[in-house]
């Protein structure tokens, strides 16, 4: 009798979407149902309860957070929790709220580490808070463009801001935190963020604090305030700031002129090139078609 080889462990990081029950895809659900163990990072406690009903072994990653504990350590601990079970030969699922790869470090790190160690690892996309934001606020990121930044990173580094596009700042509730140990920063930090934004936007520019709905009995938070009022606007860990454009698209006449030159060259080339396709219709029947060109 041939003995079966020990089953190798594997990892799948899946997204459950934002709202309990509304956004989970069939593949994410199947991953969970087929897993040996599920690690959970949800944004809502009742959503966590819902996930616990989907599988007998759901282990919350919440205990890895702690007051005063550096979040980089929290993310490392999350990764190690999942990898330990993968190494033990388990089919492991990391279930994350939203999309597991959007503003989420631990899933990417866990997958990369699992692959480095020779395990199969996969990320299953989910409906992210960004997707909910577009739907709830009626924004098409393709219309005038949309740039997304983590709020503190936006403050720490100079970014080339385009005020004719949307700007979305994530984790704005901890804007300016350099310790990675806080779960909220206060008005003084937000005043600095407003100062930065005031370089490009007027003080009364309407900005929207957005929080996706996580339960079907709640509504998303879509609170629009003047930019100057942001420091005193209550913000949470799950708050996102949406800054709409403050100017129309600025036409690049020099680039358009260069495109026009390319177009003219294409037209000129088409006129002089011999017709080689039989479906080329001549506008003037008396124009001679070169011999052999209709093959």
């Amino acid at each position, binding site marked *: 009798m041939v003995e079966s080889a020990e089953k190798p462990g594997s990892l799948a990081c899946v997204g459950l979407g934002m*709202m*309990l029950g509304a956004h989970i895809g069939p593949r994410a659900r199947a991953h969970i149902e087929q897993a040996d163990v599920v690690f959970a990072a949800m944004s809502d*406690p009742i959503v966590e309860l819902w996930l616990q*009903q989907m599988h007998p072994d759901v282990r919350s990653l919440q205990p890895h957070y702690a007051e005063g504990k550096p979040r980089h350590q929290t993310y490392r601990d999350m990764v190690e929790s999942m990898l330990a079970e993968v190494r033990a030969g388990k089919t492991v699922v990391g279930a*994350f709220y939203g999309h597991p790869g959007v503003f989420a470090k631990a899933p990417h790190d866990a997958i990369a580490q699992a692959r480095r160690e020779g395990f199969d690892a996969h990320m299953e996309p989910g409906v992210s808070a960004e997707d909910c934001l577009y739907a709830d606020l009626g924004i098409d990121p393709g219309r005038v463009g949309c740039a997304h930044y983590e709020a503190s990173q936006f403050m720490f580094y100079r970014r080339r801001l385009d005020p004719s596009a949307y700007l979305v700042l994530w984790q704005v509730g901890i804007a300016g935190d*350099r*310790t990675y140990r806080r779960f909220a920063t206060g008005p003084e930090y937000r005043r600095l963020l407003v100062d930065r934004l005031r370089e490009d936007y007027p003080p009364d520019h309407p900005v929207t604090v957005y929080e996706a709905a996580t339960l*079907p009995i709640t509504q998303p938070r879509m609170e629009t305030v003047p930019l100057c009022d942001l420091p005193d606007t209550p913000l949470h860990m*799950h708050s996102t700031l949406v800054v709409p454009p403050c100017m129309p698209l600025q036409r690049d006449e020099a680039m358009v002129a260069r495109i026009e030159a390319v177009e003219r060259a294409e037209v000129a080339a088409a006129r002089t090139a011999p017709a080689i396709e039989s479906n080329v219709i001549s506008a003037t029947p008396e124009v001679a078609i070169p011999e052999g060109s209709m093959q």
Partner: protein
Amino acid sequence: MSNVVQFLEALARNPKPLSLEEFIAAVSDANLDPVVRKALLERDVAALGRELDARGTMFCMVFPADNEEPKEGDEQREDDETPAQEPTSRAA
């Protein structure tokens, strides 16, 4: 507990928004504990969480601003300067 979670899931899967009357009827028909029913009707998520013994505080930041971690010396200096900040918990 499973009843109310299943109720919420069924509610979420239905794309048609319920009128207030329909919502009240659905909650009444769901065979739920009276306290849970009251929390649902009042859309009191905090009370619902307490009744379900859900986790009190959820942390939902899974992304650092910098991939570079603060150096040990910087962490200590920032610790000394860090005022106490209460997390804003989703569940009251």
